[in-house]
């Protein structure tokens, strides 16, 4: 169905189910329980899961299929974001033009950077992309001529007096919120069942729709003859060129596609929260998507989404656990024991959330070669095989 094999269709439907039910699944703990701190089912984080999921899916089309490791994809995320804010400022507060234009702008930029960088391979390619992205970052942050368009280090925001030529002027004295034909992205309704509280947010479902489309396209690309060609680039570039095929157009196409995914992610970020910060272009942002992809599983279809989810979860949930919260959790213990537990756990949460993140990177890659999905699949296979042999 839809040109997908049965397995792929099941995978797609599985992801669809997860996306639809996420507001419930991510809030498993009752509001009054101490564990509610670990609930991730609020709009901002759920949107981030999907947006970075898109970013990572796109990145995986380049890295997972062709093996070309770009360290410059942040430039496309940032360019997409700036383009989207400008659309919201100049054209209309409706998010559709913003999302489309952000994808196109990132596509054009990735065509230029990709065309030049793909003249080299391996680490030389990686450093070229890194250098381009760092130049874009520095230009957007500090180079006078460029900062007129990017707002410099403060970032670019919508303002009350923006022209927005397609919209009628705001009468409320407030900056209009990004919307889809009047449906504001921040609108939600909440459903409370007993002690559980679930938030269903308009922006989240817009992101969900876009991600399902993006995921579908990624599956189709992976399974297509074009995808096969990309895999051939990875497994043996040299032999491919001996057959008379020039691999460069294929790799460039993959580069541009993944750049457009990054731009799309940037555009969606702006649609959910109309600000483009310059650090979206920094090498750390490029590195983050690399880490997401590897963490989830390079070359697997669903892995990057999980990798993105894990990193964003740590960043947003673990960083908010503070000392007094820990004292509440362990308040049932005798005083000395309570202090001991708090002292042991505190370095790993709150201001120490990076430590937990770093440790989890190491643990995943040590114990699950191939990332979360890759590692778990091979683990599952090994166990399955063993039990089969035993039979």
């Amino acid at each position: 169905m839809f040109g997908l094999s049965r397995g792929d269709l099941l995978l797609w439907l599985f992801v669809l189910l997860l996306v639809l039910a996420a507001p419930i699944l991510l809030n498993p703990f009752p509001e009054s329980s101490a564990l509610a701190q670990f609930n991730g089912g609020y709009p901002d984080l759920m949107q981030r899961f999907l947006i970075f999921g898109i970013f990572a899916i796109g990145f995986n089309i380049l890295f997972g299929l062709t093996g070309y490791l770009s360290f410059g994809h942040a430039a496309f995320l940032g360019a997409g974001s700036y383009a989207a804010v400008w659309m919201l400022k100049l054209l209309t507060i409706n998010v559709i033009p913003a999302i489309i234009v952000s994808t196109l702008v990132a596509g054009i930029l990735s065509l230029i950077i990709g065309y030049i960088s793909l003249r080299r391979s391996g680490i030389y390619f990686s450093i070229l992309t890194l250098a381009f992205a760092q130049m874009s970052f520095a230009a957007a942050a500090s180079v006078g001529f460029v900062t007129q368009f990017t707002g410099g280090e403060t970032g670019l925001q919508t303002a009350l007096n923006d022209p927005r030529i397609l919209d009628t002027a705001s009468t409320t004295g407030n900056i209009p919120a990004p919307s889809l034909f009047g449906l504001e992205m921040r609108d939600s309704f909440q459903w409370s069942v007993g002690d559980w509280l679930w938030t269903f947010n308009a922006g989240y479902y817009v992101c969900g729709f876009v991600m399902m489309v993006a995921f579908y396209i990624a599956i189709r690309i992976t399974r297509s003859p074009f995808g096969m060609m990309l895999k051939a680039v990875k497994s043996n570039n040299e032999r491919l060129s001996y057959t008379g095929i020039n691999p460069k157009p294929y790799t460039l196409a993959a580069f541009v596609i993944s750049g457009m995914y990054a731009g799309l992610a940037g555009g969606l970020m702006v649609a959910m929260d109309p600000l483009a910060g310059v650090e979206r272009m920094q090498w750390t942002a490029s590195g983050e998507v690399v880490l997401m992809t590897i963490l989830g599983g390079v070359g697997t279809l669903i892995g990057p989404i999980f990798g993105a989810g894990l990193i964003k979860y740590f960043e947003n949930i673990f960083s908010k656990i503070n000392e007094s919260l820990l004292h509440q959790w362990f308040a049932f213990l005798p005083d000395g024991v309570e202090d001991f537990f708090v002292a042991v756990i505190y370095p790993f949460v709150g201001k120490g959330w990076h430590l937990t993140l770093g440790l989890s990177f190491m643990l995943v890659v040590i114990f699950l070669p191939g990332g979360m999905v890759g590692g778990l699949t091979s683990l599952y296979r090994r166990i399955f095989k063993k039990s089969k042999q035993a039979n």
Partner: protein
Amino acid sequence: MSSEKKRSQLPLTRRSVLKAGAAGIAAGTAPMIISTKAHAYLNEPKGSSVTLGFNVPQSGPYADEGADELRAYELAVEHLNGGGDGGMMGTFSSDALQGNGILGKKVEYVTGDTQTKPDAARASARSMIEKDGAIMITGGSSSGVAVAVQGLCQEAGVIFMAGLTHSNDTTGKDKKANGFRHFFNSYMSGAALAPILAANYGEDRVAYHLTADYNWGYTTEEAVRTSTEALGWKTAAAVKTPLAQTDFSSYIAPVQASGADVLILNHYGANMVNSLTSAVQFGLRNAQSNGKNFEIVVPLYSRLMAKGAGENVKGIFGSTNWHWSLEDEGSKAFVKSFGTKYGFPPSQAAHTCYVQTLLYADACERAGTHDPCGVGEALEGFEFDGLGNGPTLYRAEDHQCFKDVLVVKGKENPENEFDLLEIVEVTPVSQVTYDASIFGGELGTCNAG
């Protein structure tokens, strides 16, 4: 501290409140559908508590400053809930605060990490608003973050009480109806510093500016330049340095040959520590130029920066929002309260954050509501005293506090590890006041979500 006492100081979670609320309304059975728009204002506290969001840098170079802000917030919450010695609540000119929380609701708080990045700071603030029901967001250690989070709070409909942010833009070009700043700004630093510099170094000086290449750097350079040039100084050059620069040698090396006799470092945090260290290495502090002693000036000082730069700050002028060695009743009460709890004196970042929390709570009490619009109205044009900076006005036109500014100097013979700066002059507020319209921007109208 006994366990009983400790626990009583811990805030209740919002969840326990919600549970109580939910049980009362829905009896825990029937599913309820609530549109998020069905409220008088966003995150209206319905239970017996009110949640504040403390959004401070906890990772990255400003993490220590963020940690100090957090200490101040925790202290403020303790005092608002009636714990501790009450700190500056006793010296505050308004006596609306009762020590029973805010409007009788116990104060709880959530914390988050801004990472000193506008994006991350907004994500953190959004999670506080969406997940934890925070009704006010405060904190931060850079103007980029302040402007970004202020914008978010305006859009979402909660109050933003800025932490440490010194750029003119926060209450200038980028001011917002829901945002309020107690901290001083670049303009005030320039206006306060210039006369002191002229008095100490003379009026025929030639300055060389090194300016961090971002918004705060520009406004600070502008402010110091304008006010020193008005007193007769000349400017030899102003060079922008990349924000990510770590080694400033190539910017410092040409300074002495440029004909300048003062170096002004419009740098903050690590930038300032590194550029000042380089400047001292290159012998600028002992140099002679134009027949005068070469001097270095750092427009914005913080104790953590002074600590990082060590011996190099000795004798170097700068400005600061507040310093723990101030002798007024408010400052003394705050230093005592903070010092007793944590063992060292508070920084200026801690001070402004503590004050902002008290001012917010007081405005709620006076307005009789947590509604951001009511609170905003109560803050606008509010005049107060006893919070460490002398008589202060929260100006209605731009939501900026106007108060005396401290000109300080790196201390030559510190008596202890905190005794790094000494106050040279308390510049009266009249000298640093400016017209609200000079920086452009518009407040818009308040948004209650």
